[in-house]
């Protein structure tokens, strides 16, 4: 055995050597390959790996919002899905076109044509509704994808539509505030890297790139939605009633110069830009030039009073309603012979005004008109503003001077008129009109005294007579409130002279003595009547009543002589004598009645009559509980109403 085994060759060493050699070769190969991959292809492979596991992502911010003066939202952006396709990825175009057409309510042929396109990317429908987006997501079609965009929404519809303006589908402001403040409101873009897993799902890596604020900044207007609504309603009603072509209303807070409402009819709904016409989108208050007519007369009177050309009672020959200047005849609707200056304004005599204008002189009158802002932009900051038309005085003929004295032959915008009257209401000092509260307008203080306080007060007093005496503005009278007003009925220029269309207007300042509110109404081409007193004055009245009611400043009394001496602000702080003290408690019955179920107003009246001001708990209009209960004795006489919660009403 041992001999035999000794005779065999021992190959184990060779085998081991072979295996080791193979291993060495394999390892060397691996090392060589690893070295090659690591050192030679390293960078390229690293970048490939990075592409697989990381992805760049973009995030767009939200466009800034627009608010009214009270924080009521006028414009905002809402995320909406847009649907696009990569046509080359779509397997069955017929099926895809059918599904998309059904889900999106778009014609099949239109979608089919887009899907047949050779482009790499085609939009199918942008900014779809949530329902449409869900339907497309549910269909799970290859090559059809959704992407998030922001669509602009105007929750109040056409309210102040022309002022707010609108944006295009890419979110760029094209008109109004949207355009002017586009840079401020436009959103930023954040770019950051996310990690992807094997399935391509994205993981949150870190906040790098996201911490920046990419949302656009907000804009706050001076507009008050409630007053704007009141102005639009009143304007629309009048335009429908008189079948007019267009209309403008401006409501201005005299103290601050803030525009509270700027209504333009026809209305424009920025949510439906495509279906609107250019005439609807125009902000007429600043683009359209009108001959103001008699509403310019108070400014002429102010200039004449300031220059001492007239006094309040200066007698003026009104020529019995017919007067020839050069070869033109001027007529009055209320023919009179001799009138004191204040009655010239009250009865809106064109002849009397023309004579005052002529006494004043073209140069002086032009200077005043320029100082008041006519012939130049108000610089309110909106695009498309007109300068109006104001000829140089050396070009004025005697007819021009006479015509401009009663508001013809001069072109003004509603905004210019508002600025001029703001000066009068502000005691004769000019004041800028504001439309934007935030960002604060960066304007120099350009206030100039044009009239003395006495002149301004005299003109306001004369304008008060227009409304409160037998003047042309009687239809604007509001019981319990004094108003300075002026009507205007201007003939509109047509081919070769003046036609048979009119601009009816009315200017109101409330209260007359120290105006807090300025309301200007212009109704363009009313058909069924054309006098400012009939068409525009009631609009001013309605807006003023609604504005005063909204501010709680309407008078408690219908007697304007009582209210005349009371500043409207004081009406709140110092109620009228009749309402100063609650009546002394004089219970008619011994026990408290059951007032549960009564409207809160009725219950309050009942309790106030008995000298009790109850404490109201909860919200609502109906009384659902009371303390003390019905049948219990009345609270003691010596207890003040409301004190110590003597009477509590729970509302629902």
């Amino acid at each position, binding site marked *: 055995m041992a001999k035999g085994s000794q005779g065999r060759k021992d190959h184990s060493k060779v085998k081991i050597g072979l295996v080791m050699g193979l291993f060495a070769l394999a390892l060397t190969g691996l090392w060589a390959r690893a070295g090659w991959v690591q050192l030679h292809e390293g960078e390229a492979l690293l970048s490939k790996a990075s592409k697989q596991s990381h992805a760049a992502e973009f995030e767009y911010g*939200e466009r800034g919002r627009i608010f009214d003066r009270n924080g*009521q*939202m006028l414009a*905002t*952006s*809402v*995320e909406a899905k847009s649907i696009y396709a990569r046509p080359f990825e779509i397997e069955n175009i017929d099926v895809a076109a059918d599904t998309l057409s059904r889900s999106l309510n778009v014609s099949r042929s239109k979608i089919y044509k887009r899907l047949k396109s050779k482009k790499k990317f085609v939009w199918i429908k942008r900014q779809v509704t949530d329902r449409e987006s869900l339907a497309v997501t549910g269909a799970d079609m290859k090559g059809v994808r959704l992407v998030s965009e922001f669509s602009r*929404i105007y*929750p*109040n*519809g056409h*309210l102040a539509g022309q002022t707010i303006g609108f944006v295009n589908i890419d979110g760029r402001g094209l008109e109004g505030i949207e355009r002017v403040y586009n840079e401020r409101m436009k959103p930023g873009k954040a770019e950051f890297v996310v*990690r992807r*897993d094997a399935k391509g*799902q*994205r*993981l*949150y*890596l870190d906040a790098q790139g996201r911490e920046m604020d990419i949302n656009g900044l907000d804009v706050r207007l001076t507009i008050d*939605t*409630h007053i*704007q*609504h*009141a102005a639009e*309603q009143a304007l629309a009603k009048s335009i429908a009633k008189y079948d007019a072509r267009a209309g403008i209303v401006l409501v201005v807070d005299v103290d601050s110069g803030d525009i509270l409402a700027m209504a333009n009819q026809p209305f424009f709904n920025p949510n439906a830009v495509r279906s609107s016409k250019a005439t609807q989108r125009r902000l007429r208050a600043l683009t359209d030039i009108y001959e103001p007519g008699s509403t310019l007369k108070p400014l002429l009177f102010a200039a004449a009073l300031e220059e001492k050309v007239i006094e309040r009672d200066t007698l003026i020959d009104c020529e019995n309603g017919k007067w020839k200047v050069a070869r033109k005849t001027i007529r009055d609707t209320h023919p009179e012979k001799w009138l004191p200056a204040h009655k010239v304004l009250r009865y809106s005599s064109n002849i009397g005004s023309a004579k005052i204008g002529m006494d004043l002189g073209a140069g002086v009158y032009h200077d005043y008109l320029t100082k008041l802002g006519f012939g130049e932009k108000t610089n309110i900051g909106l695009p498309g503003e007109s300068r109006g038309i104001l000829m140089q005085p050396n070009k004025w003929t005697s007819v021009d001077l006479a015509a401009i004295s009663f508001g013809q032959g001069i072109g003004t915008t509603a905004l210019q008129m508002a600025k001029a009257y703001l000066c009068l209401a502000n005691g004769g000092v000019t004041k800028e009109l504001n439309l934007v509260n935030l960002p604060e307008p960066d304007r120099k203080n350009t206030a100039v005294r044009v009239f003395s306080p006495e002149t301004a007060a005299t003109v306001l007093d004369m304008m008060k007579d227009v409304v409160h005496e037998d003047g042309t503005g009687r239809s604007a009278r*509001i*019981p*319990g*409130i004094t108003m300075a007003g002026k009507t205007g009925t201007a003939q509109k220029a047509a081919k070769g002279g003046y036609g048979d269309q009119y601009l009816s207007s009315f200017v109101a300042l409330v209260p007359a003595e120290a105006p807090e509110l300025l309301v200007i109404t212009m109704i363009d081409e009313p058909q069924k009547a054309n006098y400012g007193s009939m068409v525009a004055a009631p609009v001013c009245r309605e807006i003023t*009543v*609604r504005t005063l*009611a*909204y501010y*709680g400043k*309407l*008078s*408690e*009394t*219908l007697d304007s002589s009582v209210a005349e001496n009371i500043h409207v602000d004081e*009406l*709140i702080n110092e*109620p*009228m004598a009749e*309402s*100063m*003290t*609650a009546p002394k408690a004089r219970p008619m019955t011994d026990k408290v009645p059951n007032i549960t179920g009564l409207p809160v107003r009725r219950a309050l009246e009942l309790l*106030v009559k008995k000298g009790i*001001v109850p404490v109201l708990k909860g919200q609502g*209009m109906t009384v659902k509980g009371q303390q003390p209960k019905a049948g219990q004795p009345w609270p003691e006489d010596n207890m*003040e*109403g*409301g*004190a110590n919660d003597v009477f509590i009403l729970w509302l629902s």
Partner: protein
Amino acid sequence: MSQADKTLLWMVLTLLGAALVLGLGAVWLNIERMDVAYDLRKMDKSLGQKEDLAVKLTVERNNLVSPYQLKRLAGRHSLGVAAPGQIRRIADTR
């Protein structure tokens, strides 16, 4: 084995053990990190959806309290703007 060799051996073993623990810890942390990343992504998406909904609800709220809607609602309840002489101010005698 000398005392110095023993010390060296222990140090090597300790280091190897520490490397193993640290390696395992790194793997565990990475798994946890991925889990957190998935959760964060989910929460991020959910937050986005909620914010989106909040904006839509704000728009709806603004629409409901818009003057046009309020006027319609007031009309349904026979309420309207106060006319001159209809407002009463009750003095606060407390």
